[in-house]
């Protein structure tokens, strides 16, 4: 090949190359075009290989043109690559497109029972205040459930409790605990003051199932026994508790009431949070919701566990929280707490 021939070929390849590059429609074709233009068997490569046979002047002249052609083709190839690969990528994504309005794949969480949720809230408030959680057996003996709590046999308060008795030969003393209060006794039997405990648990009253009553329900009991504990401390503790649970505007009212194991005794009511105390069905149009029984631990109870009532005083409170959960979540029928209907349970998925 002579230099003239070489220059002619270079020009022809430049023209053919630019045309070819412009025509290809895929990156694969472009790759093939690149091979045919600049590959080992390409005519351009033939030219480069023959450069060595030219004189110095020709070699420099043809070499310059060859570089120029390579650079032009390379630029065109790169540019075309950019366009084609962009188009191909877009096509790929288009094929892979989804309807983003379809629902997401979720990891479904389970749910806590609403009574557990409320129990945790109550327990958390009291543990933050310095109380320890204790729990006790659901099968209880009558000493702990009644006698030690100053409720002797034939006492009206004992007969009003609708006790469920066990049928265990040789153990007529066994009952299903009618309240969490026996844990007052068990706790004090097991330790010396100061005592600050909170007792959540299941209790039993032999009642018919209705929209308002179940033979099984849940109570939480609090007990504080120390030197210098007063009725004012009880009042302040309950106010603090209810404001933490229900909101800072909550009003708490104590009125005289009788429970054999406290003296003075009180009935505890909170201002109705369903109607802001203006009166509604939830509060029976009174503006107040009865929540707990409370009072100063009766000296006889302290004597029964070997505490000196002259040295130690204490307060106790207790009440069901099933109703609290019902009011809190707007559940009208207590039986639905026990039906375990999926449509009921799933509503508490987001909580806790």
């Amino acid at each position, binding site marked *: 090949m002579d230099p003239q021939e070489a220059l002619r070929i270079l020009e022809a390849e430049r023209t053919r190359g630019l045309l070819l590059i412009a025509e290809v429609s895929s990156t694969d074709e472009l790759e093939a075009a690149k091979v045919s233009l600049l590959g080992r068997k390409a005519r351009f490569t033939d030219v480069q290989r023959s450069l060595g046979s030219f004189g110095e002047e020709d070699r420099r002249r043809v070499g310059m043109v060859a570089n120029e052609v390579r650079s032009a083709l390379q630029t065109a190839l790169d540019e075309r690559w950019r366009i084609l690969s962009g188009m191909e990528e877009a096509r790929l994504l288009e094929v892979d497109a989804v309807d983003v309005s379809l629902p997401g794949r979720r990891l479904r969480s*389970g749910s806590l029972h609403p009574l557990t949720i409320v129990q945790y809230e109550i327990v958390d408030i009291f543990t933050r205040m310095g109380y320890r*959680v204790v729990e006790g057996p659901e099968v209880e003996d009558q000493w702990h459930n009644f006698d030690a709590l100053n409720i002797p046999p034939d006492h009206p308060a004992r007969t009003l409790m609708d006790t469920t008795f066990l*049928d265990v030969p040789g153990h007529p003393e066994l009952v299903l605990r009618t309240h969490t209060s026996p844990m007052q006794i068990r706790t004090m039997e097991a330790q010396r003051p100061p005592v600050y405990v909170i007792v959540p648990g299941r209790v039993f009253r032999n009642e*018919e199932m209705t929209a308002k009553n179940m033979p099984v329900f849940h109570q939480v009991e609090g007990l504080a026994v120390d030197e210098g504990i007063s009725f004012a401390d009880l009042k*302040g503790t309950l106010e603090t508790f209810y404001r933490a649970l229900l909101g800072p505007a909550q009003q708490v009212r104590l009125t*005289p009431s009788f429970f054999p194991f406290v*003296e003075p005794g009180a009935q505890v009511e909170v201002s109705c949070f369903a109607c802001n105390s203006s009166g509604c069905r939830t509060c029976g149009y009174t503006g107040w919701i009865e929540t707990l029984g409370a009072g100063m631990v009766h000296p006889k109870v302290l004597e029964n566990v070997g505490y000196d009532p002259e040295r130690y005083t204490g307060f106790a409170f207790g009440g069901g929280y099933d109703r609290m959960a019902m009011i809190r979540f707007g559940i009208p029928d207590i039986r639905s707490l026990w039906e375990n209907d999926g449509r009921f349970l799933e509503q508490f998925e987001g909580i806790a």
Partner: protein
Amino acid sequence: MKIVLSWLREFCPIDLSPDALGGLLAGKGMHVESVLRPWEGLEGVVVARVLEVRDHPSSDRLCLARIDIGSTEREVVVGVRNMGPGDLVPYAGPGARVPALPEPLESRKIRGVLSEGMICSARELGLSADHSGILVLAPHDPPSAPGADFKAAFGLDDVVLDLEIETNRPDELSVVGVAREVSAATGVPFTPPDTSVAEGGGSASEAASVEIRDLERCPRYLARVIRGVRIGASPIPVQARLTAAGMRPLSNVVDATNYVMLEMGQPMHPFDLDLLEGRGIVVRRATNGERLVTLDEVERELGSDDLVIADRTKSVAIAGVMGSATAEVSETTTDVLLESAYFEPRGIMRTSRRLMLPTEASMRFSRGADPEAVAPAADRAARLMIGWSGGGTVLAGAIDVGGAPERKRLAIRSERASLVIGHEVSTDEIVDVFGRLGVGVEKAEGSVVVEVPSYRPDLEREEDLIEEVVRVQGYESVRATLPGIKQAGDAGPSYALRRRVRETLVRAGLREALSLSFASASDLELMGHAGGVRLANPPSAGEPFLRTSLIPNLLRALTGTLYRGARGAALFEVGHVFRASDPIEEREVVAAAITGPARQGLYGGPRVLDFFDARGALEALMEALSVGDWHLGDTLGRPFHAGRSSEVVVSGDVVGVIGELHPALAKPLDLPDRVAVFELDVEAAALHAGPGVRYRDVPRFPPVRRDLAFTLDAGIPAAAVRAALEEAVGDLLDSCTLFDVHAGAPLPEGKKSLAFAIDFRAPDRTLTDEDASVAVARAVERLAGEFGAELRSG
């Protein structure tokens, strides 16, 4: 206790609205259950004078009455002919309303004669149950004239407060007791009822006798004798009050005792003196098997713990509970022996409970009546009987056997009161409080000695007096303080553990359920549990046991939720289960039950939840409890699927069960074939809890990964193969994941393939292929030797 307001005002003339009074009483411990207006439905009824009574022209039974209603005359048709010219009767004209009828009255023709309204019976006016005839006003009724508004004339515009009385305050089961509290709260003076009685015509002790044979059960028995009474109806306002207070007016003599019981809290009983054999009362225990027909016409069998009132030959009443017809006051009675006694409370409680016979009297006696009220209440009742029966004589004196105990004297220290209440209480303030209650006190140095009134059995020690102080001062006067707690709060390990259990299962997608603690015989049978704990009086007769397992209730919950249209459910419960032993075994367990499609909706597939979903939840649970050393042990029999169940073993102890329900049991329980459950003794498992999370250095060198598939006999457990594989690989093992289990073509019958992805790694260098190959060779050799396993690929 229903308190009629006008009655209350007789003893404490307050001027308060029912609402204001209700608020005041609540603050003193008497909550208002309801405010009643018994005669709301009575309007426009007037007093009328009967002018003439004629036969109805077309009825034998009916009659016509011409009446004068003050302004004019009317004619009405009447059903009963018990009134005559001159009688005053209640008349409800057109437009008037009576409680017994839903609509106002109209003029209407009855058998062809126009009746302009009606004249009324006591029942139609809501006064009593008496519907035997027209209510004819008696001479002892308040005077009134034709045309007078009946409601106003007889005080029927009264309001009644139904109060909830605490069981320790029997004194508040009376109008007088409530009046005393109202007086203490308002400062409006309290006036006791008039108990003066005119006596004459011989002495009671000559006319009758009383003998108490059990002074412990009956510390005091007083009898008065009233001669020459005429049995009849009580005055209308008296009947109205009794009705409003919830009692039935019967006759003047009986009404007088009931009236005074409601008023003063002392139950009394009138006997017909002529029907008492030997005109004597004997208070004694019943003999075993002694029978008595009580006034409710039920024959009662008595025992030696029951106290009876008897005459010389027979029992005539169950003491403090109910009388019998034997010596009851009747229309022919002329001489009355009036019983007023004090009975020991617990005995009355036992008898009334055993006979399931709670009465107004037994309620008061069993809570503790006032032993000092025995005489004044009898005087008051005798006074009213004479007044209401238009004659008769109260014989002089009372036969009063036994007596009231001496009043207790209790001290209250101002320092102690201040400590318990939480604010300073002076002796002067204490004196003031008891002064308001009308209770006698003596002031001493730093304390006050209180003479406890006989009507306050609840005041037994200093604390009771302290309650009186804060109660009368008002609970609202107490400030709010907090105790200085010098300990950190703590949920405790056991509570925290169960909280972690719940949280883990919730994260695993299970929903917490809650079920009652009871079980039926078939629940126990289902679980194959003997030794359920039996209840003596189960709330539901069909479930006489305490639950031995949470599983039956969870299965019922699944059935229920599927029945209501759910496709599946995954439930768990944490709760107590019980087994008979001595002492009773009570354990806290967690159980789960799952069934239905693994996923639902758009991304759901054909897979249903099964054993491995339950196992997955169990694995998560064990991890949360930091229990490392656990495995599944022997397979289980019914109610489980023998091929898909196992004991759960932690450190050698069986602490639970896991498995699918036996398919044959699913159908009768209305459940799908695949229901997976587990139950785990939480505390037992946690006994073997490991130390929890310990940090290990993150590896710095890359792993070499090999996938190994082995063919071996189908019966060999994967866990055993894996354990051997891991052991053979040894120190270089970083992780080993079983990623495929396959049986069937192209494998021969009875063979399966297990494929593991293994990461090899060394902590101190980058492993070579050579290192991995050596380990693989070791593993292949071990598995070939131990299980006859062949390497398919790797």
